[in-house]
């Protein structure tokens, strides 16, 4: 016997991102972050008990997310285990040994995990002026960086970003003070990074997505793994938790699967 459980792309991505987190770690995220926030809360309630997460500009530490809210500075996030001031969050991000996981994103994301939230095209006269990177330069100092994007197309996933807001692996000599990008999560797939070349490598395809779809939608050629797995779907328990948090349905606005 089996039951068919429908879930949205957002719910799948939240479940995938939650599985990146380990007990007792400290995670942080910036603007437009309902997705990583839901992932962190889900992780706390499943595989990563004791996880800490800081909801960006609000300074909230372990917000209870009842309900999950759209803005990263919503006052409802202050219903949390503790709250820090924003300047103190900046100190914590800068110290370099405190943040285990940094959730990042970009209007452009490239094959080395560089993220651009600033100018697309020329720096001084961009074709698309993005909002700006806020704290993205701090990804350089995080333990590892999980990149997520609700768009998977060739405008977003590019060979080289036009402007580095959040640095990925450097092309030349010299390294990152932190651990660098570890995973990219998109509506179509997940990609990790080849340990030797530090270039993006396809890791899993989401249920129902084909390799051709991903390659068609990606502006660079990811390394292909020996065996391409399917992303595990969210479990009924995971979905049940996500839906309890997300009474406003923020994660269900995308296509259902």
């Amino acid at each position: 016997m089996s039951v068919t459980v429908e879930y949205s792309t957002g719910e799948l991505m939240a479940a995938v991102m939650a599985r990146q987190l380990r007990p007792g770690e400290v995670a942080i995220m910036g603007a437009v972050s309902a997705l990583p926030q839901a992932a962190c809360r889900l992780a706390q309630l499943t595989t990563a008990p004791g996880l800490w997460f800081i909801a960006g500009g609000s300074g909230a530490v372990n917000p209870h997310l009842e309900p999950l809210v759209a803005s990263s500075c919503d006052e409802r996030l202050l219903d949390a285990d503790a709250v820090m001031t924003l300047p103190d969050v900046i100190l914590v991000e800068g110290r370099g040994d405190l943040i285990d996981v940094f959730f990042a994103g970009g209007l452009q994301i490239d094959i080395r995990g560089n993220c651009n939230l600033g100018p697309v095209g020329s720096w001084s006269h961009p074709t698309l002026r993005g909002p700006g990177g806020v704290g993205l330069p701090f990804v350089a100092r995080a333990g590892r960086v999980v990149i997520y994007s609700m768009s998977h197309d060739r405008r977003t996933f590019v060979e080289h970003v036009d402007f580095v807001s959040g640095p990925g692996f450097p092309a030349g000599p010299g390294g990152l003070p932190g651990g660098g990008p570890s995973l990219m999560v998109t509506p179509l797939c997940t990609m990790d990074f080849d340990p030797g070349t530090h270039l993006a490598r396809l890791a899993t395809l989401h249920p129902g997505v084909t390799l051709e779809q991903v390659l068609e939608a990606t502006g660079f050629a990811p390394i292909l793994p020996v065996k391409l797995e399917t992303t595990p779907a969210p479990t009924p328990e995971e979905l049940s938790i996500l839906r309890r948090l997300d009474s406003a349905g923020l994660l269900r606005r995308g296509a259902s699967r």
Partner: protein
Amino acid sequence: MFLSSAEAIERLVPEGTGFLAVGGMHMHNNPMELVRELVRRRRGVRRLLTSPSASLAADLLIGAGLVDEVATAYIGFEHLGLAPAYRRAAESGAVTVLELCEAAIVHGLYAGAGGLPFTALPPGLELSDVSTANPEHFHTITDPFTGERVLVAAPLRPDVALIHALAADERGNVFFAGAHFTDRLMAMAAKTVIVQVERMAKAGEIAAQRADGVLPGFLVTAVVVAPRGCLPTASHRAYGYDEPALRSYLKLSRTEDGFAEYLQINGMAAAGVTA
């Protein structure tokens, strides 16, 4: 100490003000009544500094053509979309962008508040293009303790800061509710500080606050009482942001004509205003 928004802007933000900072974060605690007054009076500023994440306040000032250069790390509307006027002005070159990061803003304001000549930044921050794009705001120097090359940023010392707080007492002591983001630091770094508040404080209310939530009156130049004056952005612990009103702004301001219409509808098309 207590002024109307018109008096405060008229007296304390003279035309051609060099460096104006505006507080709030994302769609929260933007001192909109003060910002609207700037627009009504067409008060131009040479440089606008935003908090690490700005939205409507910055977009309105830029859209109205009142800003030569904007120093910012983010202007947008989170899940509601990009900032239309900022996009248009930045893409056309009508506004110069001094792209900063959160660290350069927060540590820069700390330096400005404390009289520090500049601030060193954590290693790794030189890997983004932020410092490369703005060579006049950043330098790479030798750390005299380690011999390493380190990135340093200029201090931020606004001439005027416009911020929002929940309430003020008679002496101009103000207190914040909910989060106050970089607003206290901005006020501590600025020479002139105008605080927009929802209401007057009740007796004993300020004294009951923790140190963190209070800005003492000797750091405040003027207080403007403007109930619901942050709308359509939120005022923490008073009201949430007005999402339909923000969406309506975003829709209209996609074009210059629409932006002018928004000003007209919202009482900001004062005499002398041209779209």
